[in-house]
């Protein structure tokens, strides 16, 4: 049931005017004046080209933009469809806009989207990011179609990435979530994704913990998986974004790994007894990797790893990691930078120890996540050193091997999960 208390009067009125819709594309904005017009146009084009007979709406949820974003949107809403000989589209394309808060929060934005989707009884939704400059009309369609026409609850994107893009996802998020939840979704943490109206209702009726608010899409995916709903992936293309600060690695790990650990905790009944993984249906091409020059060796990363480990090992890591894991880390932390190697097996054990510690709240959960950062840096350094000259195929093979390692060590996770300390 929609949480009507979330909805302002103005938004409710706008939803009333729409009545019922088949498709809804949501654009959460915060200071996106430079790209919002193009994003909205892209969605409209997508509707015209792919869903000309369907009842469609575009929902902008704004987090209190202080630039011209809201003004631009208002001016777009007032603009009439360009009239030419004949009709541009069969139906009115509804544009709804609302401000959900005074500061941006993806989770709060999604809550409004869920409510709107529920009230409009939409069959399929998609969320797109206005910061994505490579957004084209095919994207929204590729995210909506599987949910709309083929009953998939969650549609994750697939991108064409350059080699060194998305390494946190490649080395941690994807393999671990795949092993734990048993479903091979490549990009569970994304800025564009699709979902069914049914999943929106399901997620809208649950409270959204603080831990998942920054990355609600992953939580939605896990919800879908654990409720037995079908998931899929849809190829979109290369992804480029507006260059911006973005959160630093600590915050990123907090948002993503924290989300992942939280989901492991909240949905433990689902995965503790399960083994193996299954692939999901992929629409369009599979994940693509394009060659890229290796970045310069991040010596600083290694330094941060070594110093970090040494500083934290007794004060913090001892409460998190198993004795063996700690001992092995100590060994590799003592290695020379040129010979440094962070083995996959150890990396997996580290993560599983961290997940278990998070589960039993060995120390403050936020501290657990922060403590992971130097170790991640070490792993990253090792990875970059190993793959500086790899081909995309070799890198993919390595990722697959890492995934299998995560799967192989799942019993270890379960053991650590159930242990008292």
């Amino acid at each position, binding site marked *: 049931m929609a949480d009507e208390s979330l909805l302002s009067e103005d938004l409710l009125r706008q939803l009333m005017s729409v009545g019922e819709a088949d498709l809804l594309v949501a654009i959460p904005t915060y200071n996106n004046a430079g790209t919002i017009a193009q994003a909205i146009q892209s969605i409209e084009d997508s509707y015209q080209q792919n869903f000309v007979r369907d009842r469609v709406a575009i929902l902008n949820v704004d987090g209190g933009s202080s630039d011209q974003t809201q003004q631009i949107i208002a001016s777009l809403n007032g603009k009439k469809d360009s009239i030419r000989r004949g009709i541009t589209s069969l139906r009115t394309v509804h544009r709804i806009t609302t401000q959900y808060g005074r500061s941006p929060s993806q989770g709060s934005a999604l809550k409004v989207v869920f409510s709107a989707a529920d009230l409009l009884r939409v069959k399929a939704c998609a969320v797109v990011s206005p910061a994505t400059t490579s957004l084209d009309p095919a994207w929204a369609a590729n995210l909506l179609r599987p949910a709309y026409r083929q009953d998939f609850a969650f549609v994750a994107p697939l991108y064409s990435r350059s080699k060194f893009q998305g390494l946190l996802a490649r080395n941690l998020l994807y393999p671990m979530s795949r092993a734990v939840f048993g479903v091979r979704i490549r990009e569970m943490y994304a800025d564009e994704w699709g979902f069914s109206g049914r999943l929106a209702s399901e997620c809208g009726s649950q409270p959204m913990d603080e831990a998942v608010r920054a990355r609600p899409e992953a939580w939605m995916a896990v919800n879908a998986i654990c409720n037995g709903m079908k998931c899929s992936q849809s190829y979109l293309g290369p992804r480029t974004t507006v260059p911006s600060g973005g959160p630093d690695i600590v915050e990123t790990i907090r948002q993503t790994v924290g989300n992942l650990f939280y989901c492991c905790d909240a949905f433990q009944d689902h995965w503790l007894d399960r083994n193996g993984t299954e692939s999901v249906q992929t629409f369009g091409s599979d994940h693509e990797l394009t060659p890229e020059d290796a970045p310069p060796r991040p010596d600083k990363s290694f330094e941060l790893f070594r110093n970090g480990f040494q500083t934290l090992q007794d004060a913090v890591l001892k409460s998190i990691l198993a004795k063996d894991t700690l001992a092995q880390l100590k060994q590799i932390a003592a290695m020379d930078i040129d010979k440094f190697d962070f083995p996959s097996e150890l990396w997996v054990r580290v993560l599983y120890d961290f997940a278990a510690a998070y589960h039993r709240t060995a120390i403050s959960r936020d501290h657990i996540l922060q403590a992971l*950062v130097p170790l991640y840096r070490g792993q990253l350094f090792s990875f970059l050193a190993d793959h500086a000259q790899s081909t995309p195929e070799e890198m993919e093979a390595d990722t697959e091997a890492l995934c299998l390692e995560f799967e192989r060590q799942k019993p270890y996770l379960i053991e650590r999960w159930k242990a008292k300390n």
Partner: protein
Amino acid sequence: MKDAIVQGLQQAYQNMSQMIAQFLPRLVVMLVIVLTGVLVAYAFKYAARMILRLTKLDRLSEEAGASKVLRMAALPSMTEVLSRSVFWITLLGFILIGISVLNIAGLQEQIARLLRLLPEIVVAMLILFLGLVIANFLSRAVLLGSVNRGYGSAMLFSWSVRFIIWILAITMALDELSVARQTVLAAFSIVFGAFMLGLAIAFGFGGQDLARKFLERSLAEKKTDDSDELQPL
């Protein structure tokens, strides 16, 4: 003279025997009371544990987040903490009663004073406990933050924070107990002030470079290391 000494010794021996004769029964009574107290305290502890388990206190405490705090302080569950508290409070009560039976002059007064001080003692212990927990938490937070930002003196920062909070907690606890109030206050001011002065000097003179680097890092981009340029997602 020899007789006087012998008489004196005999008298002293008699007095001591009398005292012991008078004291022993009281001691026995005290021991009985304390033993009874132990038994009663255990009984109360088990009763309390049973009642608290029936009320599912542990689950409530987990939901309220209090259990997390206890785990962080390496304490057992809420039920266990409370039932053990019941045990110790009961036992303490019986011990005090037992001691009062000994009828040692002056001791009664002290016991009465101790009993009057009990609430303040409890509060002071609570302050120390909280201080410990907070010191632990904050110092760890500072440690992690500094490590992840690449500051060389992460441990120093961490310990400084811990030290400050400890000093604060101890001072507050002593103040609560009204123990040498003015001395404690003065000492606190001196120590704290000196510490801050030391930090200021360190930053101002000896730590110029460090301070400069710190400020630069704070005002510059969030990039802490080279690998931060790569897009993680």
